[in-house]
């Protein structure tokens, strides 16, 4: 397993790298965004750890977006200056799968990395449902592909997994805790931001109208529910 760590703080970079190496990971480290992006293309890591605030033109958010243009590689974002929820949401919207606020302790860091890798490696969800198609939205769980009106929509592994869990329970409410445990892992049970951010990203990608969603509905303070829609006869 290869992990790329991009952080301008050498002390942090070194400590994280040392720990990961102890845990038998292969580690590549970089001190700024541009180098990080180069290293990403050069070393093809299985996971990227990105600091947000870095010197130079390219900050962590940009690097993450650039990575997302070409790959689904899980990204763990580290931030020192997050103040409001919006900061976290901005980070997640750039395509990160995880958002940790500094200071982060070594054990938690390693645990999160393992969980992320586990998530990205678990290729398929359950076999009970293979997909969904109503003419407007097409979900193929086996090929991990989603089409909206015939056009392919790019989903990150986390987004895909979230959609899969909801589809699997279509018509039933999945509460936040269940969602967190199934998609992110048991250790994430308290991170209530994640579902909220990912649900809104999913809606932006698949809902005909984000303001009044029809597929992914919110059950206030409980959780979310996937609602199947009557088939649309294509106008073609």
């Amino acid at each position, binding site marked *: 397993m290869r992990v790329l760590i991009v952080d301008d703080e050498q002390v942090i970079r070194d400590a994280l790298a040392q720990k990961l190496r102890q845990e038998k990971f292969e580690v590549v480290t970089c001190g700024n965004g541009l180098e990080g992006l180069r290293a990403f293309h050069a070393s093809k890591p299985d996971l990227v750890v990105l600091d947000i605030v870095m010197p130079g033109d390219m900050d962590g958010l940009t690097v993450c977006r650039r990575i997302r243009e070409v790959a689904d590689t899980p990204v763990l974002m580290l931030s020192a200056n997050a*103040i409001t929820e919006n900061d976290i949401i901005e980070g997640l919207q750039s395509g990160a799968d995880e958002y940790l606020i*500094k200071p*982060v302790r070594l054990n938690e860091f390693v645990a999160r990395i393992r969980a992320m890798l586990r998530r990205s490696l678990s290729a398929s969800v359950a076999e009970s449902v293979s997909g969904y198609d109503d003419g407007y939205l097409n979900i193929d769980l086996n090929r991990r592909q989603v089409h909206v009106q015939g056009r392919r929509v790019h989903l990150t592994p986390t987004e895909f997994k979230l959609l899969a869990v909801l589809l699997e329970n279509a018509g039933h409410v999945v509460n936040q805790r269940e969602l967190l445990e199934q998609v992110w892992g048991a250790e994430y049970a308290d991170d209530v931001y994640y579902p909220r951010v990912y649900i809104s990203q999913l809606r932006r990608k698949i809902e005909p109208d984000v303001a009044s969603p029809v597929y992914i509905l*919110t059950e*206030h303070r409980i959780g979310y529910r996937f609602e199947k829609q009557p088939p649309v006869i294509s106008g073609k």
Partner: protein
Amino acid sequence: MTGLSPVTLVLNGFALALALGFMFIVLWYDSRKRVIQFYATFMLMVTLWNLGALMAQALALLPANTAITSIAFSLTELGYSGASVALNIFLTLLSGTHVRRFSLLAFLSLGVLIAYRLFLLFAASPTSAVDEAPPLATFSIVFFVIFDLLSLYLGWLYRRKIRDALMVTGVVVFVTGQGVALLNPELGIVALATVISSLGALMISVAIVRQEIITPITSLTAQLNTTRGVSMSISSQLDPGTILSEITVQSARLSGADAVGLFLRERADLELVNVYNLPDEMRHMRVAVGRGLIGQAAEMQTSLYIENYGRDWKGEDDLKYARSTFGAVVCVPLRYREEVIGVLLVVSGKQGRLFRREEIQVLELLGAQAAVALAHTRLFDEVESARSTLETLLNSTENPVVAFDAAYNLIFANPAALNLTTLNAAIREHRIHELLLPNGDAPENVYEIKLDERDYLCHLGRLGSVQLEGWVAVMQDVTQLKELDRMKSEMVRMVSHDLKNPLMGALLYIDLLRETASSTQNEMLTVIEQQMDRMQRIIRGVLDVEKVRLSSVLSEPVMVKPLIERAMHELRRQADSKQILFQAQNPDDTLCFIGDADQFQRALVNLMENAIKFSDDGGRVTVRAYREGEQIVFCVEDDGIGIPSELHDRVFDRFFRGRQQGAEHVAGSGLGLSIVKTIAENHRGRVWLENADARGTRVFITVPAGDSGGLDVQLE
């Protein structure tokens, strides 16, 4: 015998007829006045005397008739002595020196005199018939000596008061006439005497007509004209100094006084502010209200008149030299709205004239007008100075101020407002309402507006208490404040970032060290870790304050029971580690409010965390929520060390940390409760502390209750 001279007869009859004519005029004018009544009595007696004398002269030409003769003599005697008495009484009244019941006594004595004469006429044997008229009886001589001389004395003594030279001359002439009658019993002399006396009576009549009728009428007209002129000249002035001197000069002119002083009230004192003919150094002298003649006039709010200050005034002296120089003195209070604002002092010198009642009345009239003029000047001054202060204020302030009426016409704009190009253009193009009343006539009171590329906070106020009369907008340039605010947030962000990175680096190396450290080293590492945790908490506290401040408060329905459960869930582990009995007391399922669940949960967590931190191991922390009227009340109670009451308000201040005994070991940033307060205020709620019954503290936080029925479950 000289006989009846036609010349004297005609002269006498003419003078008498004229005098009688005047008498009737005066009686017709005002018959109720005592002076006039006695003047009429006097004239009646003079007529009787003349009639008697005429009869006696006529009888001399006829054959003797003792009865008629004695009647004629009696009439002469009665008229002669009666006139003496009546003149005396008249003069006494005129000089104003009469004692009480004087007129009653006077009438009585006249009555006795007449009765005595009638008694003599009918009861006593008639005087022997004589060719010549008998000389006046001794009785009449006594009357003449006593009363006429007394009258002369009175006239002399009160010449200042009588003032009319004709009157005094008339009295002298009349007395001379009566005197002449005594000289020689010859009829010719008697006729001469009656002519002189008639002329005297005519003079007295003319004087009385002038004094009683003509002078009041002419002086009234004159006074009316002067008062009108004075009040016009006073009210046309607005300069206080001019008005004051106008009042004093005009009062002196109107009353013919020798000196005038004008006192203005200064709290409990009266200050001499303007003088006429008084020594200038007297100016600014002060007299206390209620003391002296001036003070008394102010206190009693009535005019006071003293004829002779040195003789009649028994109270305290008002001014230096007053007793030695003042003669007649009038004090007129200047009243405005039931309040004395000053006193007008009108003085005549020791040998000067006295004041008539009409003059005092005119002074009072003048005083009333002067008071109004002065009060108005003061009001005008106050308004003017307030206006100029306000104008200076508005002109000097950097805040643009604009006022406009309900039809959006400009009422006022200060230079700061006119200097703003955007605002100036709006004013010129008559579309100021588009700029300043963005929501029409029902605007927000405070809103932000961008003018000339700068940010302004506009405070809008309505003009008119009942009906809308317009608007006034006060704008405050907050560009710099907003910039500062942005810089502050930026700095907080930067500092927290710059602190968090080294902190994380250090913590990571502690983690790495732990893997190889010995047990003693591990203990030391724990200490280092604890210290770093503290630092981290402080940073988090600062960021939390910033976070609560920056985050917009959501308005969504929040159920109370799940909220409490989530908050307690966050702290369960912390409570368990201290074996604290941490429980919620049956919160109501239906309680609900509109607000930001995350923020409010944050507030509850902070309160509960405090309760846990300040409780001893094995203590108890209880959370309750209930509805009280329109409010939902959350109460977190602990049985910990408690907080002294005097600190109850201060604990909500930023960075306040209680330094009480027993709490030294408790870590915190001093920001937790200040965040709670901000959150409570964001929710239009309140937070406060109370001491629990036994020991420990109760913290309350309230929020307006929402309607739990028909909740919209849609989130986002």
